[in-house]
Protein backbone atom coordinates (compact mmCIF):
# COMPACT_ATOMS: atom_id res chain seq x y z
CA UNK A 1 0.00 0.00 0.00
CA UNK A 2 1.32 3.44 -0.91
CA UNK A 3 0.20 6.57 0.88
CA UNK A 4 1.24 10.04 -0.20
CA UNK A 5 0.84 13.60 0.97
CA UNK A 6 1.98 14.90 -2.39
CA UNK A 7 5.27 15.88 -0.79
CA UNK A 8 6.29 12.61 0.90
CA UNK A 9 5.13 9.06 0.52
CA UNK A 10 5.30 5.85 2.53
CA UNK A 11 5.14 2.31 1.23
CA UNK A 12 3.59 -0.27 3.53
CA UNK A 13 4.62 -3.67 2.31
CA UNK A 14 3.42 -6.22 3.29
CA UNK A 15 0.07 -4.54 3.97
CA UNK A 16 0.18 -5.50 7.64
CA UNK A 17 0.44 -3.21 10.62
CA UNK A 18 -0.35 -3.28 14.29
CA UNK A 19 -3.15 -1.10 15.62
CA UNK A 20 -2.13 1.87 17.73
CA UNK A 21 -1.97 0.62 21.30
CA UNK A 22 -1.05 -2.99 20.54
CA UNK A 23 2.74 -2.92 20.55
CA UNK A 24 3.88 0.04 22.62
CA UNK A 25 5.81 3.11 21.52
CA UNK A 26 8.70 1.46 19.68
CA UNK A 27 10.54 -1.85 20.13
CA UNK A 28 9.33 -2.83 23.61
CA UNK A 29 7.68 -5.98 22.25
CA UNK A 30 10.43 -7.00 19.82
CA UNK A 31 11.27 -10.09 21.87
CA UNK A 32 7.72 -11.38 21.45
CA UNK A 33 6.68 -10.12 18.00
CA UNK A 34 8.77 -10.16 14.82
CA UNK A 35 8.46 -6.48 13.96
CA UNK A 36 10.30 -7.09 10.71
CA UNK A 37 7.26 -8.88 9.35
CA UNK A 38 5.12 -5.75 9.66
CA UNK A 39 4.79 -3.45 6.68
CA UNK A 40 4.82 -0.56 9.14
CA UNK A 41 4.82 -0.08 12.90
CA UNK A 42 2.15 2.14 14.45
CA UNK A 43 2.99 3.71 17.77
CA UNK A 44 0.86 3.72 20.88
CA UNK A 45 -1.47 6.77 20.84
CA UNK A 46 0.41 9.94 21.71
CA UNK A 47 -1.04 13.23 22.87
CA UNK A 48 0.35 16.74 22.95
CA UNK A 49 0.40 16.82 26.76
CA UNK A 50 1.02 13.84 29.05
CA UNK A 51 -1.92 11.62 29.89
CA UNK A 52 -2.18 9.37 32.93
CA UNK A 53 -3.45 5.83 33.07
CA UNK A 54 -7.04 5.54 34.18
CA UNK A 55 -7.80 4.30 37.69
CA UNK A 56 -11.11 2.82 36.62
CA UNK A 57 -11.81 -0.73 35.52
CA UNK A 58 -9.66 -1.30 32.47
CA UNK A 59 -10.88 -4.50 30.89
CA UNK A 60 -14.30 -6.10 30.71
CA UNK A 61 -14.87 -9.43 29.02
CA UNK A 62 -17.95 -10.24 27.01
CA UNK A 63 -18.73 -13.21 24.74
CA UNK A 64 -16.75 -12.63 21.57
CA UNK A 65 -14.43 -9.99 22.89
CA UNK A 66 -13.61 -7.44 25.53
CA UNK A 67 -13.68 -3.72 26.22
CA UNK A 68 -10.36 -2.07 26.89
CA UNK A 69 -10.16 1.29 28.61
CA UNK A 70 -6.67 2.49 29.51
CA UNK A 71 -7.00 6.25 29.38
CA UNK A 72 -4.33 6.17 26.64
CA UNK A 73 -1.47 6.90 29.03
CA UNK A 74 1.57 8.49 27.43
CA UNK A 75 4.18 11.04 28.47
CA UNK A 76 3.33 13.52 25.68
CA UNK A 77 4.90 13.85 22.23
CA UNK A 78 8.02 15.73 23.28
CA UNK A 79 8.92 13.08 25.87
CA UNK A 80 8.09 10.23 23.50
CA UNK A 81 10.35 11.72 20.84
CA UNK A 82 13.15 12.14 23.34
CA UNK A 83 12.90 8.53 24.52
CA UNK A 84 12.07 6.71 21.33
CA UNK A 85 13.35 8.58 18.25
CA UNK A 86 16.62 6.65 18.22
CA UNK A 87 14.73 3.40 18.54
CA UNK A 88 12.46 4.40 15.65
CA UNK A 89 15.54 4.87 13.47
CA UNK A 90 16.53 1.27 14.18
CA UNK A 91 13.07 -0.18 13.50
CA UNK A 92 13.05 -2.62 10.58
CA UNK A 93 10.24 -0.82 8.73
CA UNK A 94 8.39 2.48 8.43
CA UNK A 95 7.17 4.08 11.64
CA UNK A 96 3.72 5.64 11.73
CA UNK A 97 3.11 7.89 14.72
CA UNK A 98 -0.44 7.78 16.05
CA UNK A 99 -1.62 11.09 17.46
CA UNK A 100 -4.62 11.75 19.65
CA UNK A 101 -6.50 14.63 18.07
CA UNK A 102 -7.83 17.09 20.64
CA UNK A 103 -7.22 20.53 19.18
CA UNK A 104 -6.13 21.75 15.72
CA UNK A 105 -3.50 24.11 17.16
CA UNK A 106 -1.89 21.30 19.12
CA UNK A 107 -2.11 19.01 16.11
CA UNK A 108 -0.32 21.58 13.96
CA UNK A 109 2.49 21.80 16.50
CA UNK A 110 2.80 18.03 16.72
CA UNK A 111 2.91 17.64 12.94
CA UNK A 112 5.64 20.27 12.67
CA UNK A 113 7.67 18.41 15.30
CA UNK A 114 7.29 15.12 13.48
CA UNK A 115 8.13 16.53 10.05
CA UNK A 116 11.68 17.16 11.28
CA UNK A 117 12.10 13.61 12.62
CA UNK A 118 13.60 11.52 9.85
CA UNK A 119 12.46 8.23 11.35
CA UNK A 120 8.77 9.08 10.97
CA UNK A 121 7.21 7.98 7.69
CA UNK A 122 3.57 8.90 8.28
CA UNK A 123 1.05 9.93 10.91
CA UNK A 124 -2.22 8.32 11.91
CA UNK A 125 -4.81 10.59 13.54
CA UNK A 126 -7.36 9.10 15.91
CA UNK A 127 -10.67 10.89 15.41
CA UNK A 128 -13.38 10.47 18.04
CA UNK A 129 -16.16 12.21 16.21
CA UNK A 130 -18.36 11.43 13.25
CA UNK A 131 -19.45 15.03 12.75
CA UNK A 132 -18.15 16.09 9.30
CA UNK A 133 -17.83 19.74 10.32
CA UNK A 134 -15.85 18.84 13.44
CA UNK A 135 -13.66 16.47 11.46
CA UNK A 136 -12.90 19.21 8.95
CA UNK A 137 -11.96 21.57 11.77
CA UNK A 138 -9.83 19.05 13.64
CA UNK A 139 -8.00 18.04 10.47
CA UNK A 140 -7.42 21.58 9.19
CA UNK A 141 -3.62 21.34 9.77
CA UNK A 142 -3.44 18.20 7.64
CA UNK A 143 -3.64 19.92 4.28
CA UNK A 144 -0.29 21.64 4.80
CA UNK A 145 1.48 18.67 6.37
CA UNK A 146 4.42 17.16 4.57
CA UNK A 147 3.78 13.76 6.09
CA UNK A 148 1.15 11.40 4.71
CA UNK A 149 -1.78 11.34 7.12
CA UNK A 150 -4.04 8.36 7.82
CA UNK A 151 -7.37 9.46 9.27
CA UNK A 152 -8.73 6.84 11.65
CA UNK A 153 -12.48 6.68 12.11
CA UNK A 154 -14.86 4.39 13.94
CA UNK A 155 -16.47 1.83 11.66
CA UNK A 156 -19.88 3.31 12.36
CA UNK A 157 -18.89 6.61 10.78
CA UNK A 158 -21.13 7.50 7.88
CA UNK A 159 -20.02 8.45 4.42
CA UNK A 160 -20.14 12.22 5.16
CA UNK A 161 -17.52 11.72 7.88
CA UNK A 162 -15.29 9.71 5.57
CA UNK A 163 -15.68 12.31 2.83
CA UNK A 164 -14.81 15.07 5.27
CA UNK A 165 -11.61 13.31 6.32
CA UNK A 166 -10.68 12.66 2.72
CA UNK A 167 -11.40 16.25 1.68
CA UNK A 168 -9.28 17.53 4.57
CA UNK A 169 -6.25 15.91 2.98
CA UNK A 170 -6.04 12.47 4.51
CA UNK A 171 -3.86 10.21 2.39
CA UNK A 172 -5.74 7.12 3.60
CA UNK A 173 -8.73 6.18 5.73
CA UNK A 174 -8.45 3.69 8.60
CA UNK A 175 -11.50 2.03 10.12
CA UNK A 176 -11.57 0.64 13.65
CA UNK A 177 -14.38 -1.00 15.57
CA UNK A 178 -16.67 1.43 17.36
CA UNK A 179 -16.36 2.00 21.06
CA UNK A 180 -18.64 -0.02 23.29
CA UNK A 181 -20.00 0.16 26.79
CA UNK A 182 -21.19 -2.01 29.62
CA UNK A 183 -22.76 -1.42 32.98
CA UNK A 184 -20.38 -2.91 35.55
CA UNK A 185 -21.08 -2.72 39.28
CA UNK A 186 -23.38 0.25 38.78
CA UNK A 187 -20.71 2.05 36.78
CA UNK A 188 -20.79 2.88 33.09
CA UNK A 189 -17.67 1.45 31.52
CA UNK A 190 -16.84 2.42 27.95
CA UNK A 191 -13.82 1.51 25.92
CA UNK A 192 -12.40 0.18 22.70
CA UNK A 193 -14.16 -3.03 21.68
CA UNK A 194 -11.80 -5.81 20.66
CA UNK A 195 -12.15 -9.48 19.88
CA UNK A 196 -13.20 -11.95 17.20
CA UNK A 197 -16.89 -11.06 17.57
CA UNK A 198 -16.21 -7.78 15.80
CA UNK A 199 -14.86 -9.29 12.60
CA UNK A 200 -18.18 -9.72 10.75
CA UNK A 201 -18.95 -6.05 11.34
CA UNK A 202 -15.59 -4.91 10.03
CA UNK A 203 -15.81 -7.17 6.97
CA UNK A 204 -19.24 -5.78 6.13
CA UNK A 205 -18.04 -2.18 6.49
CA UNK A 206 -15.01 -2.90 4.35
CA UNK A 207 -17.17 -4.17 1.52
CA UNK A 208 -19.50 -1.19 1.81
CA UNK A 209 -16.79 1.47 1.83
CA UNK A 210 -13.94 0.16 -0.29
CA UNK A 211 -15.84 0.26 -3.56
CA UNK A 212 -16.68 3.96 -3.21
CA UNK A 213 -13.48 5.23 -1.61
CA UNK A 214 -10.84 6.63 -3.92
CA UNK A 215 -8.09 6.45 -1.32
CA UNK A 216 -6.33 3.55 0.41
CA UNK A 217 -8.43 1.86 3.08
CA UNK A 218 -6.93 0.34 6.23
CA UNK A 219 -9.11 -1.91 8.37
CA UNK A 220 -8.72 -3.39 11.82
CA UNK A 221 -10.91 -5.23 14.28
CA UNK A 222 -11.56 -8.83 15.13
CA UNK A 223 -8.80 -10.29 12.97
CA UNK A 224 -7.78 -13.68 14.31
CA UNK A 225 -5.67 -15.26 11.61
CA UNK A 226 -4.33 -15.13 8.06
CA UNK A 227 -7.71 -16.20 6.67
CA UNK A 228 -9.35 -13.14 8.21
CA UNK A 229 -6.63 -10.95 6.72
CA UNK A 230 -7.26 -12.46 3.33
CA UNK A 231 -11.00 -11.90 3.64
CA UNK A 232 -10.54 -8.20 4.34
CA UNK A 233 -8.08 -7.74 1.51
CA UNK A 234 -10.39 -9.60 -0.86
CA UNK A 235 -13.21 -7.27 0.24
CA UNK A 236 -11.22 -4.19 -0.64
CA UNK A 237 -8.93 -3.35 2.28
CA UNK A 238 -5.57 -2.10 1.07
CA UNK A 239 -3.97 -2.92 4.41
CA UNK A 240 -5.00 -4.33 7.76
CA UNK A 241 -4.04 -3.63 11.33
CA UNK A 242 -3.82 -6.34 13.96
CA UNK A 243 -4.54 -5.99 17.64
CA UNK A 244 -5.31 -8.87 20.03
CA UNK A 245 -4.09 -11.46 17.52
CA UNK A 246 -0.55 -10.16 18.04
CA UNK A 247 -0.91 -10.98 21.75
CA UNK A 248 -2.59 -14.37 21.47
CA UNK A 249 -1.14 -15.55 18.17
CA UNK A 250 2.08 -13.64 17.37
CA UNK A 251 2.84 -16.17 14.65
CA UNK A 252 -0.02 -14.73 12.61
CA UNK A 253 2.61 -12.57 10.91
CA UNK A 254 4.46 -15.67 9.75
CA UNK A 255 1.35 -17.36 8.43
CA UNK A 256 0.26 -14.46 6.22
CA UNK A 257 1.15 -14.57 2.55
CA UNK A 258 -0.02 -12.25 -0.24
CA UNK A 259 -0.92 -15.28 -2.33
CA UNK A 260 -3.35 -16.38 0.33
CA UNK A 261 -5.22 -13.08 0.23
Amino acid at each position, binding site marked *: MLISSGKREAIIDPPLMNTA*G*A*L*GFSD*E*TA*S*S*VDLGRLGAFVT*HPISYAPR*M*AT*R*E*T*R*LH*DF*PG*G*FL*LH*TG*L*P*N*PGLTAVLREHHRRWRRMPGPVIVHLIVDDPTQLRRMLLQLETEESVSAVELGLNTEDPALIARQLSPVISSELPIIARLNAGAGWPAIEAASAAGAAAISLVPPRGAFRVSERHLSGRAM*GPGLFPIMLERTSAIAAALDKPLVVSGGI*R*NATDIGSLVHSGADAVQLD*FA*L*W*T*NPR*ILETYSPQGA
Partner: protein
Amino acid sequence: MLLPEGVDWPPGSTLALRGPMGDGFSPPKSSRRWLLIAFGGADPYLRPMVDLGLAEGRAVAFVSDRQTHPLPPAVEVLSDPEEGLPWADYIAIGLPFDRLDDLSARMRGDAWHMRCLSQDDVLVVGPTPCGMGGCQACALEGQGARRLLCLDGAVLRLRDIRI
Protein backbone atom coordinates in the same frame (compact mmCIF):
# COMPACT_ATOMS: atom_id res chain seq x y z
CA MET B 1 -12.19 -16.16 25.99
CA LEU B 2 -9.07 -15.22 24.07
CA LEU B 3 -7.42 -18.56 23.55
CA PRO B 4 -4.64 -18.96 21.04
CA GLU B 5 -5.65 -20.18 17.64
CA GLY B 6 -6.15 -23.93 17.54
CA VAL B 7 -5.50 -24.34 21.23
CA ASP B 8 -5.77 -27.78 22.71
CA TRP B 9 -4.75 -28.08 26.35
CA PRO B 10 -5.31 -31.60 27.62
CA PRO B 11 -4.14 -32.40 31.14
CA GLY B 12 -0.38 -32.66 31.29
CA SER B 13 0.22 -30.07 28.57
CA THR B 14 3.27 -27.86 28.88
CA LEU B 15 2.35 -24.21 28.61
CA ALA B 16 4.60 -21.35 27.56
CA LEU B 17 3.71 -18.53 29.91
CA ARG B 18 4.08 -14.86 29.23
CA GLY B 19 4.44 -12.30 32.08
CA PRO B 20 4.20 -11.11 34.65
CA MET B 21 6.59 -13.63 36.08
CA GLY B 22 8.83 -11.18 37.81
CA ASP B 23 9.20 -10.07 41.35
CA GLY B 24 6.92 -11.24 44.11
CA PHE B 25 6.68 -9.82 47.59
CA SER B 26 10.17 -9.28 49.01
CA PRO B 27 10.10 -8.60 52.73
CA PRO B 28 13.45 -7.65 54.24
CA LYS B 29 15.20 -10.58 55.88
CA SER B 30 15.36 -8.63 59.12
CA SER B 31 11.62 -7.91 59.24
CA ARG B 32 9.75 -9.62 62.07
CA ARG B 33 6.26 -8.13 61.99
CA TRP B 34 4.32 -8.37 58.76
CA LEU B 35 1.10 -6.51 58.08
CA LEU B 36 -0.81 -7.92 55.11
CA ILE B 37 -3.58 -5.71 53.72
CA ALA B 38 -6.09 -6.95 51.15
CA PHE B 39 -8.60 -4.69 49.45
CA GLY B 40 -11.18 -5.50 46.82
CA GLY B 41 -10.81 -9.28 46.87
CA ALA B 42 -7.02 -9.46 46.67
CA ASP B 43 -6.93 -11.86 49.64
CA PRO B 44 -5.82 -14.93 47.65
CA TYR B 45 -2.71 -13.09 46.49
CA LEU B 46 -1.63 -12.39 50.06
CA ARG B 47 -2.63 -15.70 51.56
CA PRO B 48 0.66 -17.45 50.70
CA MET B 49 2.49 -14.72 52.62
CA VAL B 50 0.58 -15.77 55.73
CA ASP B 51 1.92 -19.29 55.53
CA LEU B 52 5.42 -18.14 54.62
CA GLY B 53 5.60 -15.63 57.44
CA LEU B 54 4.42 -18.09 60.07
CA ALA B 55 6.78 -20.77 58.79
CA GLU B 56 9.67 -18.35 59.16
CA GLY B 57 8.66 -17.43 62.69
CA ARG B 58 7.39 -13.94 61.96
CA ALA B 59 4.38 -12.26 63.53
CA VAL B 60 1.63 -11.82 60.94
CA ALA B 61 -1.37 -9.53 61.01
CA PHE B 62 -4.02 -9.59 58.28
CA VAL B 63 -6.58 -6.99 57.23
CA SER B 64 -9.21 -7.47 54.59
CA ASP B 65 -12.27 -5.54 53.56
CA ARG B 66 -13.97 -8.77 52.53
CA GLN B 67 -14.94 -11.96 54.28
CA THR B 68 -11.73 -13.91 53.98
CA HIS B 69 -11.13 -17.63 54.34
CA PRO B 70 -10.26 -18.80 57.85
CA LEU B 71 -6.72 -17.92 58.84
CA PRO B 72 -4.39 -19.84 61.17
CA PRO B 73 -4.97 -18.99 64.83
CA ALA B 74 -1.50 -17.41 65.06
CA VAL B 75 -2.53 -14.65 62.66
CA GLU B 76 -3.92 -11.52 64.21
CA VAL B 77 -6.90 -10.32 62.25
CA LEU B 78 -7.31 -6.58 62.32
CA SER B 79 -10.35 -4.60 61.30
CA ASP B 80 -8.45 -1.53 60.18
CA PRO B 81 -5.06 -1.24 58.44
CA GLU B 82 -4.11 1.78 60.51
CA GLU B 83 -4.21 -0.38 63.65
CA GLY B 84 -1.20 -2.28 62.42
CA LEU B 85 0.89 0.53 60.95
CA PRO B 86 2.84 1.50 64.09
CA TRP B 87 3.53 -2.18 64.85
CA ALA B 88 4.58 -3.53 61.43
CA ASP B 89 8.12 -3.37 60.05
CA TYR B 90 6.93 -4.67 56.65
CA ILE B 91 3.66 -4.11 54.81
CA ALA B 92 2.33 -5.96 51.79
CA ILE B 93 -0.79 -4.60 50.12
CA GLY B 94 -2.93 -6.22 47.46
CA LEU B 95 -5.66 -4.38 45.63
CA PRO B 96 -7.24 -3.94 42.18
CA PHE B 97 -6.72 -0.85 40.02
CA ASP B 98 -10.06 0.66 40.90
CA ARG B 99 -9.19 0.71 44.62
CA LEU B 100 -6.06 2.83 44.20
CA ASP B 101 -8.00 5.99 44.96
CA ASP B 102 -9.24 4.44 48.23
CA LEU B 103 -5.68 3.63 49.21
CA SER B 104 -4.60 7.11 48.24
CA ALA B 105 -7.21 8.61 50.53
CA ARG B 106 -6.07 6.40 53.42
CA MET B 107 -2.43 7.25 52.90
CA ARG B 108 -3.12 10.92 53.40
CA GLY B 109 -3.74 10.08 57.06
CA ASP B 110 -1.19 10.72 59.79
CA ALA B 111 -0.61 7.03 60.49
CA TRP B 112 0.76 6.54 56.98
CA HIS B 113 2.85 9.70 57.05
CA MET B 114 4.80 8.23 59.95
CA ARG B 115 5.92 5.29 57.84
CA CYS B 116 9.00 5.21 55.65
CA LEU B 117 7.41 2.95 53.01
CA SER B 118 10.82 2.22 51.51
CA GLN B 119 10.53 -1.51 52.06
CA ASP B 120 6.80 -1.99 51.69
CA ASP B 121 5.28 -3.71 48.69
CA VAL B 122 2.10 -3.44 46.71
CA LEU B 123 0.50 -5.89 44.30
CA VAL B 124 -1.99 -4.19 41.99
CA VAL B 125 -4.29 -6.82 40.57
CA GLY B 126 -5.23 -5.85 37.06
CA PRO B 127 -5.51 -7.01 33.47
CA THR B 128 -2.40 -7.82 31.49
CA PRO B 129 -3.99 -8.63 28.14
CA CYS B 130 -0.84 -8.40 26.05
CA GLY B 131 1.71 -9.50 28.63
CA MET B 132 4.54 -7.91 26.65
CA GLY B 133 4.49 -4.20 27.44
CA GLY B 134 2.52 -3.23 24.36
CA CYS B 135 -1.01 -2.23 25.35
CA GLN B 136 -0.38 -0.13 28.49
CA ALA B 137 -3.50 -1.68 30.08
CA CYS B 138 -1.44 -2.50 33.16
CA ALA B 139 0.27 0.89 33.41
CA LEU B 140 0.72 2.50 36.82
CA GLU B 141 1.92 6.03 37.25
CA GLY B 142 5.21 5.86 39.06
CA GLN B 143 7.54 8.22 40.81
CA GLY B 144 9.54 9.44 37.85
CA ALA B 145 8.51 6.73 35.41
CA ARG B 146 5.44 4.79 34.42
CA ARG B 147 5.47 1.14 35.53
CA LEU B 148 3.95 -1.76 33.66
CA LEU B 149 2.75 -4.68 35.75
CA CYS B 150 3.51 -7.17 32.98
CA LEU B 151 7.16 -6.14 32.75
CA ASP B 152 8.00 -4.45 36.06
CA GLY B 153 5.66 -6.36 38.39
CA ALA B 154 3.71 -8.16 39.51
CA VAL B 155 4.73 -6.67 42.87
CA LEU B 156 6.12 -3.16 43.05
CA ARG B 157 7.69 -1.16 45.84
CA LEU B 158 5.03 1.09 47.32
CA ARG B 159 7.41 4.04 47.15
CA ASP B 160 7.82 3.59 43.36
CA ILE B 161 4.23 4.15 42.37
CA ARG B 162 2.21 7.28 42.60
CA ILE B 163 -0.60 6.49 44.97
